[in-house]
């Protein structure tokens, strides 16, 4: 049950992320990137299998056997991934803001598409 819920949640978040990534405004793209990296982070976490009440570090209370503890490696991996994706999102935001300021447009191509301009002039 928990696995199915998590899988649905990851899928929905990744789907929303991809949808936003494909949009033409940099803000949407940044949000999409963020959602996608959240989905990836949870995905990495679940590859260590979902378990309740199992610590990743030996606490001296439980028997020192593999069944009593969760796999610590994906938790270490996800930490690395979180740090990197957070830094990358910050960098992407800076570049997007700079491009917005220099090109006077938040379109990902740095300029408004011609068709939109024409339609706006016509209306």
């Amino acid at each position: 049950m928990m696995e199915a819920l998590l899988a649905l949640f990851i899928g929905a978040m990744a789907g929303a992320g991809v949808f936003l990534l494909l949009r033409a405004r940099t803000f949407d793209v940044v949000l999409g990137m963020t959602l996608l990296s959240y989905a990836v982070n949870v995905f990495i976490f679940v590859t260590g299998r979902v378990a309740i009440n199992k610590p990743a570090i030996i606490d001296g209370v439980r028997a020192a056997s593999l069944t009593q503890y969760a796999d610590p490696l994906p938790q270490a991996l996800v930490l690395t991934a979180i740090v990197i994706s957070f830094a990358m999102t910050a960098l992407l935001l800076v570049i997007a803001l700079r491009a917005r300021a220099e090109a006077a447009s938040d379109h990902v191509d740095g300029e408004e598409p011609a068709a939109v301009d024409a339609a706006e002039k016509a209306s």
Partner: protein
Amino acid sequence: MSGSHWIVAPIVLPLLAGAMALLLERRSPRAAAAVSIIATLALLGIATRLVAVAADGAVGAYLLGNWRAPFGIALALDRLSALMLLLTALIAVASVMYACGSGARGRHDERGPHFHALFQFQLMGLNGAFLTADLFNLFVFFEVLLIASYGLLLHGAGVVRLRASIHYVVFNLTGSALFLIAVSTLYGLTGTLSMADLAQRIPSIPAESAGLLQAAALLLIVVFGVKAAIFPLYFWLTDTYGAATAPVAALFVMMTKVGVYCIARVTTLMFGAEAGPASFVIEPWLSWLALATLALAAFGALAAWHLRRLVAYLVLASAGMLLLAVGLGTAGTIAAGLFYLVHSTVFAAALFLLVDSMVASRGDADDEMVPAPLASAGGYGTLYFLLAVAVAGLPPFGGFIGKSMLLAASRSEPLAVGVWTVVLLSSLGIVVALARAGSTVFWKAAPANAMQTAAAPASAPERGALALLVGAACAAVVAAGPIASYAEATAQQLLDRKGYIAAVLGAETAPPAWNPRADMKKVK
């Protein structure tokens, strides 16, 4: 080799040099540049030594933190990694020299902050990616080289670069997300991230997980394909390389080779003949996609209207050739590909530098293919002619030998007709594109007036960088025999995955150099 720390030097040295450059650059930019140049030269020396060490055929393993292989992260040095390290160092020396020369708008490295620090971190990422024997560590080094490359691409600023870098950054971030999915799927299936251990465990994965395994393998190839610029994932390449400053573009030539290297590494090591459900899951796709890349690169070169874009398409064509060699996957084709790799990388980097150096006197025409005044057209023309002949794969240069080796090696392949047609026709297309560009830019060039000539004095470091690369290309022609035999030995070693697995997993931990407790007891 086990007790030697030389293997980790290509990662540690640029890290230290980059950090020092960051500290020094505010007080004295020249000192930062000097540190960067010295470190890069030292890197060339170290890489040469590592090639000499790896040439005997043994795979050197280095256990980081002295943890045994599948538990800790290992570095591995075989012939392929050593060759890539040497190429990287060579291109880096030329780039950093060129960057310290004064271009039309002042020194290249002073057009924006932190050039040398970013340059060194990029080298660290490249070298780490070539050396690591751990899949997650590979991801980390990919990020290191990408983060540095984002900064380097923006070097010099300007709207064109910003626009190119939004595309480039978003595309590569998405690639990183896919990389993480692939890596964690593989971890979920096998419980390991060490490439040698993965190679050992993949064959025994149960049949019900075969789909997941194949999905992970193909996802990995997508990620590496983004870096290697394989069709249909190459659209970022021409914009990015066309927009970057010349020393950066020259170094970026190495970045597509990282993708090719990783594809070669995982297809031979992890998804080769003995990989059970995942064996040869990639090869059938790879050859076709590589042929498409090659064909489209030739069309792109024919259609290019700017010299930098033309060179970017040549980089793409070279990536197509290399992926074709890996995709066909026999010892002969891989050897041909590696031979071609050495030459095409040097030529492409040299062309980027050459174009940048000569457009300084062309004023507003910049690198557009229109007749425009050109200072010292004779000298540049000769160099361009040499490099164009070399990069198009005409004799006597190495590109020709590499291409003919590939054609000869693919004769018995089922795809042979396609390979011969596409390789030969794309070469023809590239020759035509280069000839057209050369005749427009050099033959129709008006003589430059005094002011334009004065605007473009190629400085000594710039000339030195160009001379280094052209000299290396010529030396590689003279040494074609040894390079070819090294490439053949590399291909053999790559296909014999048992040696790599045994070397990495069997690496012994080093005895402690200093045991504080024992020493304390002695004192008592």
